[in-house]
């Protein structure tokens, strides 16, 4: 039986063999693999890209104090971006399932419609949830728009829910019973995380402090975006650091939301503020990647 990390190794190997860059997780708090610049920024513009990485994804509202066998504050996504989408993308995807030991002839695979939208990122796509014997194991999305920009090349985003897949492979009912490495369960590695962050997120977060942080990061992001408009040297301009500021805001929004600190009237406005940052970064990035068009315009 493969351990959690064996399955991760195999998926990385599989996509590496198909030309993907193997990246490491992004080192900031994000809600999904999509938010890593490896996806959010790389899908923009005309340059092909192929990348695979595991992204620990934080969703404060999904925390359950480690008491629920299937729900986690932080879960692990294995993210694959194929840009442009190869014609046989679904065959390749099915091949990856066989590579981690799923005999497709003995199991039931269905592709059920599931479209994806992230209002704070100005992003949406269409696709499926992939069901294996009634279990949703993957989100498959053809990106159509990101940062409010129609995509030149349509990428396929394949997001494997690692805990679910491995619980299935190991035939355990609770994610905490997954064998992560020989002799170490998922609970050994992550339970303390779940317990402590649930307590913190739901009960102890300092709301005024988070608001302050939100505003500081927002201000910094906006300051950079404004400077980008004026700078002569766009090539080296810190668009990526600006994006990190936007990601901070997104995570702080999730924390405040989980804490119940955002009222109705505020909510719509806050989403719009984060979205404005994300859209601004996306536009700057596209411009920065395409200096010839810039010079032609100048």
């Amino acid at each position, binding site marked *: 039986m493969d351990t959690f990390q064996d399955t991760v190794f195999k998926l990385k190997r599989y996509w590496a063999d198909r030309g993907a860059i193997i990246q490491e997780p992004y080192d900031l708090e994000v809600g999904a693999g999509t938010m890593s610049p490896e996806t959010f920024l790389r899908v923009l513009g005309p340059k092909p890209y192929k990348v695979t990485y595991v992204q620990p994804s934080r969703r404060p509202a999904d925390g359950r104090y480690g008491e629920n066998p299937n729900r986690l504050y932080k879960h692990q996504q294995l993210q694959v971006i194929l840009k442009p989408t190869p014609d046989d993308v679904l065959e390749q995807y099915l091949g990856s399932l066989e590579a981690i030991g799923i005999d497709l*002839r*003995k199991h*039931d695979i*269905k592709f059920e419609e599931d*479209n994806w939208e992230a209002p704070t990122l100005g992003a949406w796509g*269409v696709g499926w949830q992939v069901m294996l014997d009634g279990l949703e194991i993957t989100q498959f999305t053809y990106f159509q728009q990101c940062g409010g920009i129609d995509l*030149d090349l349509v990428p396929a985003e394949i997001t494997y829910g690692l805990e679910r897949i491995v619980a*299935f492979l190991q035939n355990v*009912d609770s994610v905490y019973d997954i064998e992560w490495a020989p002799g170490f369960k998922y609970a050994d590695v992550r339970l303390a995380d779940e317990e402590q962050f649930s307590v913190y997120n739901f009960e102890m977060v300092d709301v005024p402090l988070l608001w302050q942080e939100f505003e500081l990061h927002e201000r910094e992001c906006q300051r950079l975006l404004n400077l980008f408009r004026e700078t002569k040297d766009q090539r080296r301009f810190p668009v990526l650091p600006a994006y990190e500021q936007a990601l901070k805001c997104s995570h702080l929004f999730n924390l405040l939301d989980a804490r119940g600190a955002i009222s*109705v009237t505020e909510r719509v406005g806050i989403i719009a503020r984060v979205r404005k940052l994300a859209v601004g970064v996306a536009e700057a990035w596209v411009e920065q990647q395409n200096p010839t068009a810039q010079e032609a315009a100048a």
Partner: protein
Amino acid sequence: MADFLLEIGTEEIPDWMIDGALSDLHDKFQNAFGAFGGNALRMQASPRRLVLLAEALSERAPDTQTVVQGPYLSAGPKAAEGFARKNNTTVEQLGTLPDGKGERYVFHQLVKGRTVADTLRDKLPEIVANIHFPKGMYWTGKGGVRFIRPLRWIVATLNDHVIDFEVAGVRSGNATRGHRILGSKEPIPVTVATYEQKLRDNYVLVNPAERKARIEAGYVPGTETDYTLMRTLVYLTEFPSVIHGSFDPSYLQLPREILSTVMRHHQRYFSVLKPDGSLAPEFVAVTNTDGDPDGLIRKGNERVLRARFNDARFFWEVDQRKKLSARVPDLAKITFQAKLGSYRDKTERVVRLAAEVAAIVDADVNTVSLAALLCKCDLTTDMVKEFTELQGIVGGLYAKAQDEGEAVATAIYDHYKPVSMEDSIPRTLEGQVLSIADKLDTLRECFKIGLIPTGSKDPFALRRAAQGIVKILFEARLPLPLMESVVDVPALVPFLKERIEFYLRDVLGFAYDEVNAVMAVPIGSFPDLADRAEAIHYIRPTEDFEPVAASFKRIKNILKQAGITFADQPNPELLADGPEKDLHDAFNRVRSQIEARSSYREKLAAIASLRPQVDLFFDKILVNDPDPAIRQNRLALLHSLLTKFSSIADFSEIVTEGGSGI
């Protein structure tokens, strides 16, 4: 004769869009190729293919003639010869036709009908690319073809010859694809004749009816059938097989509504009933495989279901830690509509409105008020966040578990009902009141800020809300004067009237003119409205009614022409003996009869009894008497007659035989 097969191969199409896509493809094909005749088109589909079979098409469209206009005869022989030469003919072969300016040469040109093969090749790319889907995507890059999912192959063969064309970079051919897992990994060449069998050999049953039959054959006794779920499963599979699983009976302690929702909506399983009608700890699932010899698929599905049920049990337990009544303030955090504030705001309005409605229809105000206060609180529970379709129902179940009382619980449980014209109305008076208040509030507030449904756009399901109110008021016969509660929202008046008319016509079965007649006077309460319509419908076939109705129309026209909108009582002293006085006497008699009688049937019978006097009046009396005083008095008599007897309905709306021209 030629047979044509078109298979559009795609990645998995959302199941609910397939029927619509097939019917659109059918119509587009019919429009484009109708000239080639042929049998009725056969349409089939699976998740990965839309299929059209056109049998017995003509090889060639019929020839047609067109008339090419030439020079006038007066232009001389040179012009005629030139025209003939241009059309590859001789002057002798030309015809002549006169027009306004003189006689001119014409050439009757025979246009050979195009071959079906050429026509298909030319028109199919556009037809395929334009099949309508509710939501499209592009995949070849910005500005490329939009389709529901990427196109991957196209089979287009006419009597086994490929019709060669291209859509979105996909070239048509004669090769289909089998089942993703069970079929050949290579393209499979087919002809019209071998298509179905080749697919069957590769584990694709292309005929949806066949897939449905295969699913039904796998039912176990007690399988709870479900049309919508069946259609979904038929379009989610290419080769369906049925598995039969079970779950731990201890989960049956969870409410049946929750178990059914998990099985049906989330897992797409059929539930199974015991002979006594209660839920059995079993399910029927449909796979896209040729079986489950090792039982792995069954075990996997059982495991998923166990996790789902565990979640539900967990949600139930966690949710009980905070009672619904303690959740009211939390509603401030849930948006009802951006401009309309939170559910806390909505709740306050509904509590007030529900209490007002309760007082009018004599419902228990305490029950209604408490139910209204708690009815949206389940939106803050984990259970409803997970199973949104159970909103209301979960609130009802929780209210019961938290001892808010059976009446309150039932009212909350039912308050979204009726969700369709087929759905039943809330079971209790208090539930009906809450449902009306909730829907009426939504309608009033949305209309106030201009969120008014247009065409097919109705994001807040306001039509359904209005129809729900109307259905409750009619079915439960609640004496609520609905129109009075929307006088401050004028746009709602015609909107609600439309729903009422629809209900009277399409549900209660009244003729449109009967509906117009009762709707033309103040609407009042719905039971009264239904009674009036019923009475007209009943009295209508009797001998005197329609003639009287026709006379009312005549009276209305006379008054209109005379410009009379208001008149005093007629002065009896100015009335002439004979028909005029007789009519006045009859009027007084009928008026007192109407006041004495209670049923609308009797009242209408009394009005109909006016016929001899009315007929005689119009036969013998000239309303337009030269003496203005007499004339005015006659108009006043007619005016009293019309207004006194038009509170039940406007009889002039009744369409009578030969009566419309008066």
